[in-house]
């Protein structure tokens, strides 16, 4: 295997007892044992307990492959016994070498896939969930999910798969009926699918609830017509030289289509005068309940929590003020998820206006970009993403904003 393509490969000679690499090291070298002996020490889980395992590398075998390829710290220590010679390969050397030896790759893949299978099994055992799911019922539930979401194409596919695997099972009759209904019921086109932040099924209810707050448009759960409604709204609006106006007035423009700003009346510097409607409950408890609901994707319910936080009239200390501030932002994210773009815009820009010093301002600007992106106003989305990308201090959000800019400009 050392003919051609091995120009960059170097040879290293180790004394007995040397460490070639240590667990935790970061390096992308891969080794081949040429002569001598190498022992790998690693930790493995057996019966839910870590045990130390030692493994012999045979001459001609690779070691240090996984951590180098996966770009992770070494998960084993390699030590020599007796004088030992190893070949040291860079990732490029390794790639070149194995491309000529497909059988070696196959062998490695077998070993890797067995390891992976064993680890997955152990994880399932630790979690105590081994084989508790019933794939038959789960597949049916997926089909039902798409059926109820009005996504007939996907529903049909899943029902047909269900019947293919389980022709005589519990839900086969139901599946057949659903297929018939889908085939006869005309095609409910899947507009929903190419609309980026697709509102979850629950959004229909909550957008109705807010119907009165919206002047020009609302989100209809019928779906198909709303693209046009949005683009109309967006095109009408910046007829003036809005593209050049400062960000704040642009937000005003966006908001001017609304009758009222939802989050207007509050004071937070007043002494404690008994508080608002929900004074009995701690503001942070309500806030975290909102976070829990959001992480479970119950956006409408989460929003209710944030609204309660925003109803607080008196805030006792800095912690509460901070929570209050964050609730503006999180409410905006709920609105965005629910597809209520005007409210989302109001929440994010409200945050920026009321708390211009907040460290959430940058996030809010990013999300305003997302609102514009969701409403297909690419130009404005780009303005906001670019703004975020240039803001200090540089962090992950700058990179994300840059990614968005690249994506939208494509």
């Amino acid at each position: 295997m050392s003919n051609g393509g091995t120009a960059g490969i170097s040879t290293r000679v180790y004394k007995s007892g040397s460490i070639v690499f240590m667990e935790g090291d970061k390096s992308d070298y891969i080794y081949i044992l040429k002569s001598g002996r190498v022992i790998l020490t690693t930790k493995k889980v057996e019966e839910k307990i870590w045990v130390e395992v030692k493994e012999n590398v045979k001459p001609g075998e690779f070691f240090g492959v996984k951590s180098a390829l996966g770009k992770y710290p070494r998960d084993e220590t390699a030590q020599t016994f007796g004088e030992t010679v190893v070949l040291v390969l860079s990732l490029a050397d390794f790639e070149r070498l194995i491309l000529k030896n497909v059988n070696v790759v196959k062998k490695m893949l077998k070993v890797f896939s067995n390891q992976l299978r064993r680890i997955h099994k152990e994880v399932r055992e630790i979690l105590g969930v081994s084989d508790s799911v019933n794939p038959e019922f789960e597949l049916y539930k997926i089909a039902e999910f798409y059926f109820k979401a009005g996504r007939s194409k996907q529903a049909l596919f899943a029902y047909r798969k269900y019947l293919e695997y389980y022709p005589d099972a519990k839900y086969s009759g139901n599946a057949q009926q659903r297929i018939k209904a889908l085939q006869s019921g005309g095609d409910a086109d899947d507009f929903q699918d190419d609309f980026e932040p697709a509102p979850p099924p629950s959004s229909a209810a909550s957008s109705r609830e807010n119907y009165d707050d919206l002047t020009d448009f609302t989100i209809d759960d019928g779906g198909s017509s709303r693209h046009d409604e949005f683009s109309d709204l967006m095109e009408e609006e910046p007829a003036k030289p809005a593209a050049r106006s400062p960000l704040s007035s642009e937000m005003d423009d966006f908001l001017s289509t609304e009758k009222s700003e939802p989050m207007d009346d509050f004071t937070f510097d007043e002494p404690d005068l008994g508080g608002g409607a929900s004074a009995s409950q701690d503001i942070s408890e309500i806030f975290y309940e909102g976070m829990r609901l959001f992480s479970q994707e119950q956006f409408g319910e989460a929003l209710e929590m944030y609204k309660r936080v925003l109803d607080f009239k008196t805030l006792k200390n800095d912690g509460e003020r901070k929570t209050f501030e964050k609730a503006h932002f999180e409410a905006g994210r709920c609105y965005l998820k629910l597809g209520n773009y005007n409210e989302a815009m109001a929440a994010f820009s409200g945050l920026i206006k009321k708390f211009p010093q907040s460290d959430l301002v940058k996030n809010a600007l990013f999300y305003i970009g997302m609102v514009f992106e969701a409403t297909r106003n690419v130009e404005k989305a780009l303005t906001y993403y670019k703004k975020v990308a240039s803001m200090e201090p540089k962090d992950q959000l700058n990179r994300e904003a840059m990614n968005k800019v690249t994506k939208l400009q494509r």
Partner: protein
Amino acid sequence: MMQLDSPIFDKFRVEFDPNELIFCEFEFGNEFYIIQSGRVKIVKVINNTEKTLDVLEEGDVFGEMAILEEEPRSASAIAMDHVKLLRFHRDNFDALLQGNPQMAYKLLVIFSKRIYDAKRRMMILLLEEPQLKIMDVMNMLAEQDPHLDVQGPISLKVTIQEVANWAGMQINDVQKILTHFNQLGKIELFNDKIIVKNIRDFQRLVNSRRKSNFS
């Protein structure tokens, strides 16, 4: 780079229209796919909502767990554009590798990552104290971003639900602990991210516990 357009592969070619399901969560899979053109999203229905796990593009591989054995798919794959794919049955795996060693290399990388991730997760699961589990989820997430400056506060993109999944814990328990950390000023909680004030504290705590378990 890859000779996937070679006529040898013609019989493996399949095409999908936008929004078409390529495979469905919980369906049994014997095939894996390589994207030749178009985009494919990997989604999972969680709590009655479809969640996008990943968006894949030309040259990406998906469904690769089917190389091992027939197992229910852990997620669905949906075509986003008009998508051209190569579809390989487990039995054609050898033929694919012979004709396309580059693909073999790619699979090695994918498997290496999966093994590490699974092992790393197991390290979390095997910690006894729930607080440490959660700290170690943060540690793991921090390790995944090599650009993070761990000297100062770091921002991790994760939801409470995801933390609960990683730690194998109930969401309510996770929330209690995170709220407590938040009150202590160790972290700051948001819907889609957690800011950890001093991740090195967490690393130190978890490592010292792990060491004491070993000795």
